[in-house]
């Protein structure tokens, strides 16, 4: 089982924006954790680091006792599947081929240059598509599917690679409430049945409360809340979504009211 650990992780981008300020956190194997917080709090950066899509400026990210660095990206990514807000499918390829890209880490470059896969890759892809209920759309072009279906293809692609960790970067931010519910249920089931460690970035606090066994609140690149969903009350909610601007406003509310 893959445990994940972040130790004093900071991230400063080229434009000078510091997304994370010394974050340290561990994720237990086989758990479902939701990360919530205002936009720009560093949720995506933190998640993407676990897949090596961003590398820390300082501190270290460990996935299954392997410190993520520039050289072992492929190995780490082999263990860590990820789904995205905008699905990030290759729209001109068939659903099947998109799912099969999750198998590329098992294939040598010679065969895959010619779009050749092995029989067992196809089996895994079919299983994954069956799991997300899209077997009948396997041969359609990915961009012919609805948003919710495309997200399920994204999940199937991640499942096809047989990951030990599944990251989801705002997976339901572009979806309607009913579809969001289905996607979250699917993630919960993947966590429970396969023992895959799932980490989800969410904007919907109610979804986090209902589906996660642990909630982490991020604000301005720091962890401000870490606990079980039922510990989330109005006070902690305010703490998490408290922005600096609001803090300034609170200090001098009188003039604003006077104008109103």
């Amino acid at each position, binding site marked *: 089982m893959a445990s994940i650990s972040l130790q004093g992780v900071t991230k400063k981008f080229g434009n000078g924006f510091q997304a994370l300020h010394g974050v340290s956190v561990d994720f237990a194997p086989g758990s479902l954790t939701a990360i919530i917080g205002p936009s720009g709090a560093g949720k995506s950066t933190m998640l993407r680091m676990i897949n090596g899509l961003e590398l820390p400026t300082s501190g270290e990210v460990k996935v299954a006792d392997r410190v993520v660095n520039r050289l072992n990206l492929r190995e780490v*990514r082999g263990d860590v599947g*990820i789904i*995205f807000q905008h699905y990030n499918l290759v729209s001109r390829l068939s659903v099947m081929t998109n799912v099969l*890209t999750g198998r590329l880490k098992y294939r040598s470059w010679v065969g*895959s240059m010619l779009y050749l896969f092995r029989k067992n890759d196809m089996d895994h892809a079919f299983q994954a598509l069956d799991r997300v209920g899209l077997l009948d759309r396997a041969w359609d072009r990915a961009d012919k599917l609805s948003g919710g279906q495309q997200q399920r293809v994204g999940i199937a692609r991640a499942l096809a690679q047989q990951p030990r960790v599944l990251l989801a970067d705002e997976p339901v931010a572009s979806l309607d409430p009913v579809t969001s519910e289905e996607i979250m249920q699917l993630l919960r089931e993947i966590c429970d049945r396969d023992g895959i460690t799932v980490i989800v970035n969410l904007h919907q606090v109610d979804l986090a409360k209902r589906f996660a066994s642990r909630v982490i609140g991020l604000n301005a690149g720091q962890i401000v809340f870490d606990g079980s969903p039922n510990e989330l009350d109005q006070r902690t909610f305010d703490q998490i979504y408290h922005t600096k601007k609001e803090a300034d406003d609170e200090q001098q509310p009188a003039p604003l009211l006077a104008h109103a």
Partner: protein
Amino acid sequence: MNNSLPLCWPTRNGLPSIAVVIAFVIVGGLLTWAAPIAEIDPLRLVASIPRLLSFLGNILVMPDIEYLTELLRKMIETIEMTLIATSIALAISLPLGFLAAKNTSPHPVVFHVTRSLLSFMRALPELVWALVFVSAVGLGPLPGVMALSFVTVGFMGKFFAESIEVVDAKPIEGVEAHGAGWLQVRTYAYLPQAMPDFIGSTLYILDHNLRAAAILGLVGAGGIGYDMVMAMRLFDYDRILGIALAIYLIVTLLDRLSGHFRGRVI
């Protein structure tokens, strides 16, 4: 109804932006300055109308029927040269395109070297390269094919590289994030996304190459060009008309076919 209201541009003061005015003045000035250098002289054009008409009168004759079989043979040779040259160029340009695109090149040095190589290849027109290759390998379609492929790689490689540079980055991240290797990301994320542009460029280049192949015979590099030039020099208007019609026919046919094909793929 509102026609009586004053017209204005969508700017702060309703006047055209100063940058646009300056651009127009500069371009207009350049053109007036350049026209005499390029011998753009309306009077001369008007004066030459009778001569133009007499030439057109000469060309409107019955095409040379006896020449038809030879014409057909030469046209097929021209088309074959085009297809072979474009295919060879396609096979070479595809990898070069990936090396010459900023986002897929393995190293900035490789990027710059490939880009320079491509500009060198298309620096001179096909005809000049054909001359070079004719002196190297002798007369016939072979130097023609070599020259065509050479220049086509220069253009195609650049077109491909530019198509690769504008693909959407999100699907690339999607494929990359699942542990795909360097070549795999290029095969599964960049290539399919750039494919419509690739097909468009290739069809355009095919069209261009057919017309280029039609004049390579001028320097003895095969195709219909030699006959065309000879007919011009000997004032064989019946032949020229036949050749012109044949080229027009093939180019139009190719255009229709490629349009149809494009519609199906994209």
